[in-house]
């Protein structure tokens, strides 16, 4: 049935996607070569670690919080993994006497470190009832300070490079579908797909996920229903930390050269993608598919604007406007319900 209310609701639900679709069409119209498989693989590769970060942040937003520390967590993981996974042949190696480590070990270590910091972050929110925004602001500063000290002591202020080829392959390897000149599928995309599936499973098929929606949807009701609020919050924060840890390792291996500036501002892109993808800042609402679509759409626009040579400062304006529209729509949806 198409009634006035119906159409309005549908418009509200898809307006942001429509706007972005129009932008993409404009980009293609200006530069038709943008529409090619090469660009598709580029965009997917660039979206991959962002998807993982956004899925971590997304869970925290559904809890009713927000995470400004995500970007610095990613940076911390990148610095840890890069510093422990330099090529043994390189003269620039920081830990000269250290044996060559299997790639997985530093990655797991970085994930654990990020997980622990995120757990502490969650503790402030869950147990000490610090407003999530402020707690994440504090954690962000602490994390950045700590890993920058590590970075400074390890390598002066120089970027950590000469990474172990095994490590760079871990993020830069490509598969070719249909021979050498066929479609390039970056391995990193598969990691993102794996995390997407895992997150979808956690959010929809497990008690952890249901509790997350319950806490974000109505904390008071959740308490009455016997949901362990503190544990629920801690688990979601810890999961987010593990995600940031893995994303940081990917970023280190993908870029091949790491400083403590890596990750700066990533949380903003992640939060923006979540909002664009329909995760409500009120908490309790959000889907994995929304987060992933949000990230990819955002990335297409980002990349596309660069591709057609839009003034970089103007790009900020465009992205800002998209975020404002997305949040306005989100608010309108729930205003209507009263």
């Amino acid at each position: 049935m198409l009634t006035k209310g119906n159409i309005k609701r549908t418009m509200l639900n898809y307006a942001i996607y429509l706007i972005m679709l129009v932008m993409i069409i404009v980009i293609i119209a200006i530069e038709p070569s943008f529409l090619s498989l090469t660009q598709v693989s580029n965009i997917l590769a660039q979206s991959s670690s962002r998807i993982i970060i956004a899925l971590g942040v997304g869970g925290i937003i559904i809890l009713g919080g927000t995470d400004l520390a995500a970007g610095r967590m990613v940076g911390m993981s990148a610095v840890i993994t890069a510093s422990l996974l330099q090529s043994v042949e390189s003269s620039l190696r920081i830990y000269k006497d250290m044996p060559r480590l299997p790639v997985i070990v530093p990655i797991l270590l970085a994930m654990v470190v990020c997980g622990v910091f995120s757990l502490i972050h969650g503790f402030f929110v869950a147990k000490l009832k610090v407003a999530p925004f402020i707690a994440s602001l504090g954690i962000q500063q602490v994390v950045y300070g700590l890993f920058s000290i590590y970075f400074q002591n390890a390598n002066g202020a120089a970027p950590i490079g000469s990474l172990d080829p095994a490590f760079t392959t871990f993020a830069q390897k490509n598969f070719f579908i249909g021979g050498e000149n066929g479609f390039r599928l970056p391995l990193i995309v598969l990691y993102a797909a794996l995390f997407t599936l895992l997150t979808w499973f956690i959010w929809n098929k497990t008690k952890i996920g249901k509790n997350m929606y319950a806490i974000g949807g109505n904390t008071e009701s959740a308490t009455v229903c016997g949901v362990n609020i503190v544990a629920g919050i801690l688990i979601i924060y810890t999961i987010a930390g593990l995600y940031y840890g893995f994303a940081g390792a990917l970023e280190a291996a993908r870029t091949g050269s790491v400083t403590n500036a890596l990750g700066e501002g990533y949380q903003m892109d992640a939060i923006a993608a979540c909002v664009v993808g329909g995760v409500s800042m009120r908490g309790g609402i959000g889907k994995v598919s929304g987060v992933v679509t949000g990230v990819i759409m955002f990335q297409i626009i980002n990349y596309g604007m660069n591709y057609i040579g839009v003034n970089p400062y103007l790009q900020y304006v465009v992205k800002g406007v998209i975020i404002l529209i997305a949040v306005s729509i989100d608010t309108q949806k729930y205003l209507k319900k009263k």
Partner: protein
Amino acid sequence: MADEEKKEQPYLLEMLNITKEFPGVKALDGVKLQVAPGSVHALMGENGAGKSTLMKCLFGIYCKDAGQILYQGKEVNFQNPKEALDAGISMVHQELNQVLERSVMENIFLGRFPTKFGIIDDKAMYTRSKEIFDDLGINVDPKRKIGDLSVSQRQMIEIAKAVSYDSKILIFDEPTSSLSEKEVEDLFVIINKLRERGLGMVYISHKMDEIFRISDDITIMRDGKWVFTGKAKDMNMDQIISLMVGRPMTNRFPEKTHKPTGEVVLKVENLSGEYQPTVIDASFELRAGEILGISGLVGARRTELVETIFGLRKRKSGRIFYKGKELTINKPLQAIKNDFALLTEERRANGIFADLSVVFNSTIAHLDAYSKFGVLNEAKMKKDTQWVIDSMAVKTPSQRQQIGNLSGGNQQKVIIGRWLLNEPEVLMMDEPTRGIDVGAKYEIYKLIDELAARGKAVIFISSEMPELLGVADRIMVMSNGHVAGIVNTAETNQEEMMRLSAKYL
């Protein structure tokens, strides 16, 4: 026919042929409501009959699809409640929206503070509030913080606010649902005063005795349609009920099938809470298969008692025994694990997850039963949800419907079903029939009786004495945090209960 009536008597407010459609549901279908000046017009109907939707169309919260609204003979189309308010149409809401941290007078003049040279004129605000209060016989200091007042006082303030806007039409949505009998009397005094002044009032309520006492006309709706309008004095309760439900209803309460003769399952000894307001030194026993009613005025702290037992509030002293074994309950999860369930009083605040689905709301307190290593068995969740929908007769288009889109009564049914899935031994229900239509109330009484017949122990809090007398085996009367007495339903009456309610005031 409507036209003839119009000539005889000029109505203050007329809503004609109002139609409103939501996706998949025709919420209103050609509804009419005509309110005469100097009268109270009761608007009745089961939950989901469309009473609230009709009012929302009047206030511009919803945009009507078809129909006409005439106010003082002129067609109006309010875009928002503010426009209606400025025109002289006010509503006293079921759930009061007030700024609790601010004073009474600031709440009355919110949005239109009297000013002097751009500075808020507290003196003028005080004088004008005081005038209105004296006029209506409300005994509250306008400077008090509104959060410190009782619900009934706060409601009076809402009415005073409407009067201060010089309203011609006043709409009451379940005004007495959280008032004690004494407070209802105070409310009626004011309503009668307003009637004498020529105001037209719409009174939405499920309480029959009140309707007959206070209203002049009655309009009955059913399933979004107008069914009947008539003079209150020409009607009786059975007529109204059969018009509302579309079938005759002989008994308001089901026959008791349970026997309160089981062993003592719950024993509470000298229970006191840590933080104010709290229950003080409460002791009582509850048997398997027994229904214990809890009565009391607003502020008697009945809710605080059950919330303390359930671990939602911190206990200071006292002991709780379940089947002879002492329990330490510090949080709801422990209570749930010990076969307790609590249906909370404030459905929106701590009952439902408004943005989430019926499935989610049905199963959330019961997840352990579906999870194996933390992974949920969805087929079983759907099956249980279907059981909730079927056995509670929940009206919902699907399991995936957001519960916030259902009517209040249907939301309540889902929440009751949620707790029944847990198979509790001690079921505490705090105002389970509040804001629920007659038919659904009867179903809930029957359900409570069935649960008791199956050997469950039930605590049933209600502000409606007839309901407690009709359903409970014993009634515990609370007064100002204390247990004032426990009486046998068969041997007591409303007078005795009233006397006990006032014991510690």
